[in-house]
């Protein structure tokens, strides 16, 4: 019973602080309250999002509804990070190279992991998003090469599945930084991945890269 006494009755709940103001219909007041509530929710969402962005600046995380087809010439930003467990990397890439494992002796850069966050969208939407885009990545920490030799560098990629592929990439220098431009963003997808088309989730695409210098006899 005591609890019942503390419960606001409808008449109390409808008190809006407008008492004493010129007469306003209950419907108008209700609409105004709804607008204020929605505005408060929107501001809260914006503040939360801003806080998240400040803490975790996105590499490239457009929402699905922001994906527009044929954004020609735009690059997809990616991160190059150090690989943990280089022994495992060399084991896997040697195995993946098979009869061409001799190429391991031709490596001229440190191996590094290229990682990019791509939107959580369907195959078709991702194709729209990536079509005619390139991946750009700062690899200064892994390259120690004379500028005139940059055009001699080609790349091998090792995927989580163990698949090894050549990767079409071009290194150039901007200021003090070495940047690699990966011509085809599809290279971020593991070609031997078992991931089903309807099982995509928040995806981070990654491939381990290592540079080779084209030998003089080629």
């Amino acid at each position: 019973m005591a609890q019942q006494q503390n419960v606001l009755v409808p008449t109390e709940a409808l008190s809006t602080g407008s008492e004493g103001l010129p007469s306003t219909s209950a419907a108008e007041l209700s609409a105004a309250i709804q607008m204020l509530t929605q505005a408060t929710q929107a501001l809260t969402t914006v503040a939360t999002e801003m806080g998240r962005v400040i803490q975790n600046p996105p590499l490239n995380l457009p929402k699905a509804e922001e994906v527009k087809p044929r954004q020609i010439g735009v690059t997809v930003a990616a991160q190059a990070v150090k690989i943990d467990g280089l022994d495992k990397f060399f084991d896997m890439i040697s195995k993946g190279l098979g009869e061409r494992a001799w190429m391991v002796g031709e490596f001229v850069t440190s191996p590094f992991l290229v990682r990019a966050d791509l939107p959580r969208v369907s195959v078709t939407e991702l194709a729209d998003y990536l079509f005619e885009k390139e991946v750009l990545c700062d690899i200064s920490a892994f390259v120690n090469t004379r500028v005139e030799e940059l055009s001699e560098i080609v790349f091998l990629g090792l995927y989580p599945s163990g698949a090894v592929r050549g990767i079409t990439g071009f290194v150039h220098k901007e200021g003090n930084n070495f940047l690699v431009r990966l011509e085809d963003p599809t290279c971020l997808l593991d070609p031997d991945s078992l991931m089903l088309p309807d099982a995509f989730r928040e995806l981070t695409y990654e491939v381990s890269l290592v540079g080779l210098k084209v030998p003089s006899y080629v």
Partner: protein
Amino acid sequence: MSEEKDVIRTGAALVRCDNDRWLTPKDLTAPLVICVHGFTSHGRYMIDLAQYIEGYGFIAALFHYDSYLGIDQASAVLLDRLQPLISNITHRSFVLIGHSMGGLVARAFARSVQSPLREALKGIALLGTPNRGTLGKKKLVSYMLDWGDWLTGPNPYARSPIRSKSAKQLTLNDTEQFIESLNRADQKAPLGMQMHLLSISGGRAFLESGKYSESSYSGIFRNTMLQRLIGEKPNDGLVAESSADITRVIGKSNKFIQHNNKYADYPRTNHTYLIRNQSVANVIVSWLQKVIPPPQV
């Protein structure tokens, strides 16, 4: 293939298909059929077709070569490897079968070869050959390279912007405009006036480039991208029908110059399986028997 047999290390080789040994005059006991593989591939990927052809009384050879050094370079190297065999070949005649870029190598060879080999070359078969290049889309070459890597093992050197002359030629980005020049020459004076030309295309617009291509996100995504880049149907997953059909490229169709997309397995044959499909092989054998009749088997 061991390191010792890797064409990147050994350079090009013309080998007998049944034993992988360098072709010698002793081998040339019947009309010769030389199989020329495509970009980033290797001759051994045409071995099923070559061995099948041998079963019909021809001598079949595989030409292994560094495919990224240029279409013209490959045709020059093929000519070099044939030099010691000229007298034996001209005695019996020969034919080239090119898969994908290998068809352009064969066409370039036919344009540049001199007498007496020129008269001995009786025909060229083009399987899924991009006779119009890859429409200048650089990414399409990346996909060709991915496909080649999957098929024959990784070859990063083919992706070198300075080394891969073939990539520039195939994308029509070479200053010499090699493919356009070849097409202009063939339109003006078709090879088919002196020899037979046959092109065969595939009609399945899906290309494998990994283990689970047909069911995985990656495989479906790659093919979605590829189809957008090719931009027209039908195609074989990599090369459009309009580029594979030599009669459309050089604008002539007669008893010497023919295109075939009417074989039984056309709808299910993609770029990879053009060289592994028996229905296609039967079309080729039938054509060979008209062009260079072998001794009775």
